[in-house]
């Protein structure tokens, strides 16, 4: 069988220099995530009106960012990979904003 991985171009895909991340960073991120989870739970019991979901989502986004940047190594990756992740985020924003165009104006009635 052929080993196409070893042909031109592809080899650096699977053997790209891996930035070695020490356990310290992982532990730090892990505890930050735990603290954030605690924070989310705590805030949920305080009545802040519309701010409740806003804060919960903000914390969740922050946590997701940490996971993507450090656990998924994007912080140490090439520009192309960063761009790939960004395109996913962009599509997500399109999904949210275009959907909101319906929810925000649904109650306006007819023009």
């Amino acid at each position, binding site marked *: *069988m*052929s080993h*196409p*991985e070893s*042909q*031109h*171009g*592809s080899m650096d*895909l699977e053997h790209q220099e891996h930035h070695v991340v020490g356990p310290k960073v992982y532990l730090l991120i892990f505890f930050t995530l735990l603290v954030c989870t605690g924070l989310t739970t705590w805030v949920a019991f305080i009545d802040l009106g519309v701010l409740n979901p806003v804060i919960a989502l903000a914390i969740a986004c922050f946590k997701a960012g940490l996971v993507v940047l450090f656990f998924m190594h994007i912080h140490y990756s090439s520009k*192309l990979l960063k761009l790939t992740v960004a*395109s*996913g985020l962009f*599509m997500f924003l*399109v*999904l949210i904003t*275009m*959907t909101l*165009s*319906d*929810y*925000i*104006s*649904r109650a*306006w*009635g*007819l*023009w």
Partner: protein
Amino acid sequence: MSSANTIVQLPDQSTAQLPRKHYLNQELGLKSWLLTGDHKRIAMLYLFSITFFFFIGGAFASLIRLQLLTPGSDLLAPDTYNKVFSMHGIVMIFLFLVPSVPATLGNFLIPIMIGAKDLAFPKINLLSWYLFVAGGLFILAAMILGGVDTGWTFTTPLSTHYLNTHVVTAALGIFIAGFASILTGLNFIVTIHRMRAPGMTWFRLPLFVWGHYAASILMVLGTPVLAITLVLVALERTIGIGVFDPTKGGDPLLFQHLFWFYSHPAVYIMILPGMAVISEVISTFSRKRIFGYTAVAFSSVAIAIFGFFVWEHHMFIMGVSNYSALVFSLLTMLVAVPSAIKIFNWSATLYKGSITFETPMLYAFGFLGLFTIGGLTGVFLGSMGMDVHLTETYFIVAHFHFVMVGGMLMAYLAGMHFWWPKITGRMYPEAISKLAAVVTFIGFIFTFFPQFILGYLGMPRRYASYPPEFQVLNVLSTAGASILAVGYLLPMLYMPWSLKYGKIAGNNPWQATGLEWQITSPPLTENFVETPIVDHEAYDYEWLANQTEHEVKTVG
């Protein structure tokens, strides 16, 4: 272009020989297929699987048309009819059309067209086939256990609250098959970025590769949303989480937003690879470079991007905001522009070309006419006022069958015939396959054109019975469907026949310019004896004519 006015001499095939060693006989035995990393063999595995599912879907289609032969529900009970059209849609869309061209021809050809020995991740490619089969088995299980009747659209709250059929099993199957398509897309993107041969710049890529690149973007960015949406439906059904349930603060329309966020781009996942095939076929059989190469290449990417901004046109009558609908209606008009660019450029390519009418070209002509009608009726549906009248009628059914069957399936068959000599090393029988192409076209028109009229007159889709005054057009449609069935059965007979009795094709039976035509048919396992160095543009027929020896490297 000077070569444009010479009718091309196709090579003499009487002396052509099969190479001694090629990807089909390199290794033998079932295991060598089931554990293969060769993109060409994986393409064949996919070909078998999707052909199987095409016939399952086709059987359901026949049941639908037979039921609608008469106004009453004479053949099937209404409940059963609901299951039949749902399973027809689910199988045809998720198990046939989405993988049709990319997983077979795309897998086979993309590495060869860019001068690589395989895709970037051969094992992930094989994994994608296993996922596809697993997803297919779940969907088959859902059918055998009693079926599912949500429609292919899994509309809430019908799917979450009211049905007792195998919704979760079917959704799970689609979920799994979805990952097959994500992995295929990922593999294509990485391959096209990283594995191009020296000299193969982005603007020397055949348009086939551009079309697949655009479709891959959609697969990777869109399919996860479908996966999440189906998981939410399953969770709603099983433990009632409430996202789509107004009594718990949810919104059934949220399901529609999420579902169509994937499913509108999904229609382009289905059509872009078809357009990719058409570019190759039209160039080859008019012996001209595709007119406006860059415009065609970029219009694929434009379709992929704009395709994400129009989904609400499926929801105009569902109670969405009027203001939002207005915006989406406008954007829908815009998304037809890149498709039109392609049609115009293909037509311009034909102009003063040395056109010949081999089977792939006949299918391509079918594509041009039928896709144009399908796309234009899409614009009707995209204008809000018209849509109120036409939505949920047979007009929609006709619209999407014109684009998906008249467009994509024609393109698929065009591609299958075009590359059959490359895949198998043998020619299909030309006369009977021309007949099949014509029969398909005639059958298609009779089946689906009456449905535009039926829809305009107000016959709703998805009902087992209809008022008697609609019968004449329905009988026409059913009669057309039986002609269409003949058109599809013919290739099923002569393609396998040609494996043994077809004329030996030689390397480049069509005198086409792609790299895939410069190697042996069937190709070697490693595709190229040495990495090709590309020094000419795509579709450069002068370059081809200047090659002293067309039958390069018949190394066996």
